[in-house]
């Protein structure tokens, strides 16, 4: 157990150090030139911190929804977050370039989840199945609207939008980190404070026997997860698979109890996200980090699907 705890502290620490010292500009940690210090301060630190923010938000968002829905194949994107964010970004590109992509992406990402939740709420109750179905409906709606907008975009806008949607940390600035990271850390703390309720929620509707208002808490957890995810993807674009992959690895390591699972998910989330970005930095050009996480995530998830059959263990 001690070894696992040490590993969960060491892994993100190593990843963060690599995030700070690896890149195309020479930055020898033993002989830092003034230029290297500037590169670390102005480029690598915000990029690594955005990686930390993305790692925490996407992983915890996925972990929470998997617990609340008692389904290992659920992530924040199934509620329409990604399609809402994509549509918001496309609106910004097509009609409001002066407004910037992030605010509209954030707005539409949250709007998508609100719509899904409103649609799924029947007689004051929100069942897991109806929420997932509503998420699929909202995703389909925003995807269709996105396709419509794509028809109106000139070729260079369209290719830029497609690349943006693949997700990247290369555009991270201190300003964006300031908007994203404090919110993500606050919401992560909220999750940690609510870890016992999350444990109870993972029992499903039986949690009502413990005196929990399951429908109210389901709504609260869904919105916190969505808000957390949107706080990241509205700045970075859609980074796939982290929210699905990381909670499973964490669960394999420390089990399903949330007082241990939350720190483990945060630790692995940071490690995966920051290391994926380090890989991107070592490749030529500016390859979207979402491609790297997908390349890692898809085979892992395929393996998981075959092992569990999509059921909850």
């Amino acid at each position: 157990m001690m070894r696992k705890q040490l590993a969960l502290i060491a892994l993100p620490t190593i990843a963060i150090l690599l995030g700070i010292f690896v890149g195309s500009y020479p930055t020898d940690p033993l002989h830092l030139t003034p230029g290297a210090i500037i590169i670390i301060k102005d480029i690598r630190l915000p990029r690594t911190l955005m990686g930390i923010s993305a790692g925490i938000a996407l992983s915890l968002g996925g972990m929470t929804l998997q617990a609340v829905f008692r389904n290992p194949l659920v992530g924040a994107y199934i509620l329409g977050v990604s399609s809402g964010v994509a549509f918001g970004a496309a609106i910004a590109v097509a009609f409001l370039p002066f407004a910037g992509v992030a605010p509209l992406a954030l707005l539409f990402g949250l709007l998508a989840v609100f719509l899904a939740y409103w649609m799924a709420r029947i007689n004051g109750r929100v069942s897991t199945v109806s929420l997932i179905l509503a998420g699929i409906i909202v995703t389909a709606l925003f995807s269709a609207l996105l396709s419509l907008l794509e028809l109106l975009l000139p070729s260079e806008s369209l290719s830029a939008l497609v690349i943006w949607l693949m997700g990247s940390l290369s555009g991270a600035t201190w300003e964006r980190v300031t908007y994203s990271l404090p919110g993500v850390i606050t919401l992560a703390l909220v999750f940690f404070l609510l870890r016992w309720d999350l444990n109870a929620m993972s029992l499903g509707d039986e949690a009502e026997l413990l005196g929990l208002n399951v429908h109210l808490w389901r709504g609260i957890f869904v919105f916190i997860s969505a808000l957390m995810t949107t706080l990241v993807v509205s700045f970075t674009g859609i980074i796939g698979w982290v929210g699905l992959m990381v909670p499973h690895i964490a669960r394999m390591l420390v089990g399903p109890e949330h007082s241990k699972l939350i720190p483990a998910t945060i630790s692995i989330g940071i490690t995966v996200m920051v290391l994926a970005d380090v890989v991107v930095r070592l490749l030529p050009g500016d390859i979207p980090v979402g491609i790297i996480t997908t390349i890692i995530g898809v085979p892992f998830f395929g393996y998981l699907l075959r092992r569990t059959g999509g059921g909850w263990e």
Partner: protein
Amino acid sequence: MRLKGFLLVGILLVSVFAAGCIGTSSASGKATSTPKEVTVKDLVGRSVTVEVPVQRAVILSTSALEIIQLLNATNQVVGIPAEAKADAFLSSSLKNKTVVGRMLRVTNWEKVLAIKPDLIIDLYLKKFYNVNELLNKSASYGIPVVMLREDKLEEIPKTVELLGKLFGKEKKADEFAKYFNEQVSEVKAIAAKIPSKDRKKVIMIQPIMGKYYLVNGNDVLAQAVRLVGADYMVNLTFNGYTPVRVPMDEEKIIASYKDADVLILITSAVTPYNQVKELKETMLSNQAWKEIKAVREGHIVILRADMGKDSYLRWSPRLAVGIWQIGKAIYPSYYPNWENKAKQFLKEFYPFLS
């Protein structure tokens, strides 16, 4: 009940008949002289036999449309791509033609056949769309296709001359080709006077949606930089493929192009001038960007390559002015103000804009 059944079958038959008969038709092409058949070599070296002057062309490239407008042959065009509607350099008479495609592709062959074109003009860009499909389909409908290229500066007057020949506007085409070649010669003459010690190293960045796209060495803008007497620093190839734009993160740009003397930021259809101006201010105040000599010394210039009226840096006849803009941006003391060139150019070749 039976009557209703007959009624329904009747409505169905009428609908089927109507669907087969109703279509779009916007014939507006006019002959300008007696037609004759000629065989021309297009810009990719294909031999194409066309009846000239072309009277009903479908043109899927906005830059080719600009050339047609310059040649005063807009009434010989019947089909355009959707993006032509957003091009500030195109007149409303061209924008009002039937939209048959988008981004170099024909999206509605039924519309194409309805407007009965005698020629299709498109760009030979195999990476962007299925060129062979377009060629095969056009051949099956008996419509000749002329393919153009937008790679090099010298292809601009060549394209104008080819289209002049096809549309029966040789005189105007020759006039423009002469003007363009004169501009190039004048720029070359100035470039030749720049001593090698003053020769500048240049990079061009097009920021789009928070990402930096480097203009690669094979782009026509990089060629223009070399033409004005500077060295273009970016020449990137990936497994034999050389894209015209390369997305690159801030750190890689700083690490690779520290010695650049001039950094040119260019606008795009997505990134308006004000956003690029903001980026310029950010770069000038950012210590990391100051690792690049050009930023440190304040040599960042914004040039326009968007869809607006002041944009001269897209592959089109406008580059006759664009090369002067680039010259002035890199060597302000060697090149004259480009605004006068722009006025003269617009008056002569884009009269509806001036």
